């Protein structure tokens, strides 16, 4: 079993990843045995359609994220080798809309628009391994700091109840990001 940089003299790597915030490509450069500089570009969208009592609920969200980060690896002990903490900046274009209509009349009952702030700090921890063949794998859990989002509710025939708003705000909050990456080291 060989771990990053210790047995692999490759200085760069690239691959694909899947995350809570979307899937995309990630690349990086091993600045040293303990410092890795990387960037990723991801996009994702969710479209949901559900039915309530006499209503049709449609929502759509799009997430475009560019993340530039630096990882710091713990390599002093074998047990921690591959463990890293990272921090970076994410530039994002995240938007969402939702619309509730009456099934019988097609009349608009209510709608909403969501927008997230374009820049956030992202920190996280993870584990990264590179096999001798060059296959690279990592898993990380990130969290955003300093971001904000706005939700504009529009009421046409119904008032949004406080509980409905809270539920919606909870479901559309994505403060953490699980990232699963597979790539190739070269």
């Amino acid at each position, binding site marked *: 079993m060989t771990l990053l940089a210790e047995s692999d003299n490759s200085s760069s790597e690239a691959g694909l990843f899947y995350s809570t915030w979307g899937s995309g490509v990630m690349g990086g450069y091993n600045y040293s045995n*303990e*410092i890795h500089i990387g960037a990723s570009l991801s996009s994702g969208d969710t479209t949901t359609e559900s039915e309530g009592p*006499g209503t049709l609920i449609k929502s759509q969200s799009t997430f475009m994220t560019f993340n530039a980060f630096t990882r*710091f*690896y*713990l*390599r*002093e002990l074998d047990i921690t080798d591959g*463990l*890293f*903490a*990272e*921090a970076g900046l994410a530039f994002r274009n995240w938007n969402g809309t939702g619309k509730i209509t009456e099934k*019988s*009349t097609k*009349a*608009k009952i209510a709608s909403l628009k969501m927008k*997230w*702030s374009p820049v*956030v700090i992202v*920190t*996280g*921890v993870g584990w990264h391994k590179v096999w001798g063949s060059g296959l690279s794998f990592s898993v990380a*859990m*990130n*969290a*955003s*700091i300093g*971001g*904000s*989002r*706005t*939700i*504009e*509710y*529009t*009421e*046409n*025939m*119904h*008032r*949004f*109840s406080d509980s409905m*708003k809270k539920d919606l*705000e909870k479901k559309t*909050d994505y*403060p*953490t990001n699980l990232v699963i990456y597979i790539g190739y080291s070269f």
Partner: protein
Amino acid sequence: MIKYIFLLFFSIFLHSGCGEELSTSTTDDSANITKSLLTGTWTAKCVDNTTASTSSNTVLVFSTSGDNLAATTTNYSDLSCVTQSSVLTKKLNTLELGSKTKTSQNQIINKFTAKVTDITLEPKTSSVIMSLNKSSFCELTGWGSGETSVAGQTCGSITYNAVNDIHSDIIQINSEKTFIRLGNITNAASTGYPKTLYSQEYYK
């Protein structure tokens, strides 16, 4: 050194992820109901009763001033609103629109009150006249082909308002202003206003 940076980022990570700062705003884009908006004729679609093999439709006519309302329900002896059997008309005046509010189900509505000027029932066929007289419908026996006032009378399971009673109701309009709904008067709160809306729409 790296160990400390690692610990720093790790501790920042532990203290983050609690959610982003949220700001919300709510815009009321519902239509404002005014008397001038209501003025005119609003017609409901034919509603069939397959159990009784009958149907009915209701027409609401708001006067030009918006002060008067005539709600005319025509009953039919078939399922597709073709053969008239009777016509029930509720006439109201001094209509007063309340401000915008909501039902317990969060439907945006306006309350309104109006004074009852008359409620009439007009049989449309001789067989209906015979039936009404035979059963002394509304405790009346002199049913003829014209309109008969049933205001203040109990007709079957329904007791109608008397003349000069105040009719309390709720009204909803969609934001496109293409239809209105009235309250379900059989489900009134202690205030006298219906608690819920009828699902039936009236189109202009």
